[in-house]
């Protein structure tokens, strides 16, 4: 396998062909913000937080789905990118009902952390205050659509790792929501194996274990990676 050399934020990098910009950055200790990316499942390039600038191109490239190419010169922290990242996070906060103070994931939330990363001290966009439901019909878990950012990680883990495809996206545009089965209460969806992978995958407090209260959500992200390695490489190391 051939090796590609490129430059990210002034650092010379060599990495095998086929790797993504995100992988290249990560291996070299350069952090690029992401929300929809999750190790172990396919990438969709939807959150647009991982966009990077490439010299000689006026298009911004999503790092999670763009493969490295020889001689790329990339910048991940330009003022323009930082501005757009902050706006993206503000749009997310304004779109849902993200009340950190009363959330199970308070202190352990990727959206909350992302707000800090991008320096969001307030949202310039008015909050939409949508009327969204909470479904606690499942005996172990609950889903609070108020906190959902539609990253579709739950859809992908359930389909690609567990194979149950309990979740999908319904409607479109601003009306999109994560749907279980035929828009049935989660607890009544036969396909669900109660494996809890969606809880581990969820970046916010949208999918949670019942009984956990403010700030108590924990997730075992490593389990997902363990399962993928076990399945794909037949290696059970943890």
């Amino acid at each position: 396998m051939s090796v590609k050399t490129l430059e990210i934020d002034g650092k010379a990098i060599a990495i095998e062909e086929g790797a993504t910009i995100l992988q290249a950055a990560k291996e070299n200790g350069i952090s690029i913000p992401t929300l929809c990316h999750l190790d172990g499942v396919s990438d969709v390039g939807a959150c647009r937080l991982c966009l990077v600038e490439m010299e000689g191109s006026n298009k911004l490239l999503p790092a999670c789905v763009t493969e490295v190419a020889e001689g790329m010169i990339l910048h991940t922290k330009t003022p323009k990118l930082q501005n757009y990242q902050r706006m993206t996070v503000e749009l997310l906060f304004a779109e849902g009902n993200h009340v950190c103070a009363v959330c199970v994931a308070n202190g352990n939330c990727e959206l909350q952390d992302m707000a800090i990363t991008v320096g969001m001290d307030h949202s310039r966009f008015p909050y939409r205050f949508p009327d969204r439901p909470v479904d606690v019909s499942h005996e172990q878990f609950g889903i609070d659509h108020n906190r959902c950012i539609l990253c579709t990680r739950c859809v992908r883990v359930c389909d690609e790792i567990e194979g149950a495809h309990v979740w999908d996206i319904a409607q479109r545009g601003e009306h999109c929501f994560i749907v279980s089965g035929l828009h049935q209460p989660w607890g009544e969806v036969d396909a669900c194996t109660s494996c809890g992978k969606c809880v581990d995958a969820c970046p916010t407090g949208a999918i949670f274990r019942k009984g956990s209260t403010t700030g108590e959500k924990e997730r075992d992200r490593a389990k997902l990676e363990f399962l993928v390695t076990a399945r794909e490489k037949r290696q059970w190391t943890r």
Partner: protein
Amino acid sequence: MPTLNPQSPSHPDLKSPQSSKAKDQALSDRRFKTLDMTMKRNQFKHDALIEVLHKAQESFGYLEEEVLIYIARGLKLPLSRVYGVATFYHLFSLKPSGAHTCIVCLGTACYVKGSSKVLQALEQELGTSVGNTSADGKVSLLSARCIGACGIAPAVVFDGVVAGKIEPEETLKRIQAWEAED
């Protein structure tokens, strides 16, 4: 000044699937046979989903739960995927529609020529908003994103027949004729 937030996204209520009491009766329904034929013609392939949904919408008038479950089983697709596709496209409806349909084109040409006034008049007459059916179940009021009849804007489709260069008064007359029917 703080004002009421308009158009906050709607989120339909969850519904438990119906018990299968209607299933036997449903299976003998000829309309399900039509679905079978469509699925068979497409070798029960996953990619036939939209075509089968079209057929279902045509035969049943809307996509009721039983029908969606039937299609999901026929094509061996996850329920959530079928629901996701059925709700993505404008032309599929999960609610029963009225005896008549009236589609107002809101394309640019129609918009410039005053289609919003036609729509307003209709909403007032029917006492309902676009995407819904009048309380008596007679007329479903819909809008379209350009039906390609821009040359004769503004255009309204009454039960599948396009009428061009139409004024609000004329539109109301046609609707009133429907409403007067038994």
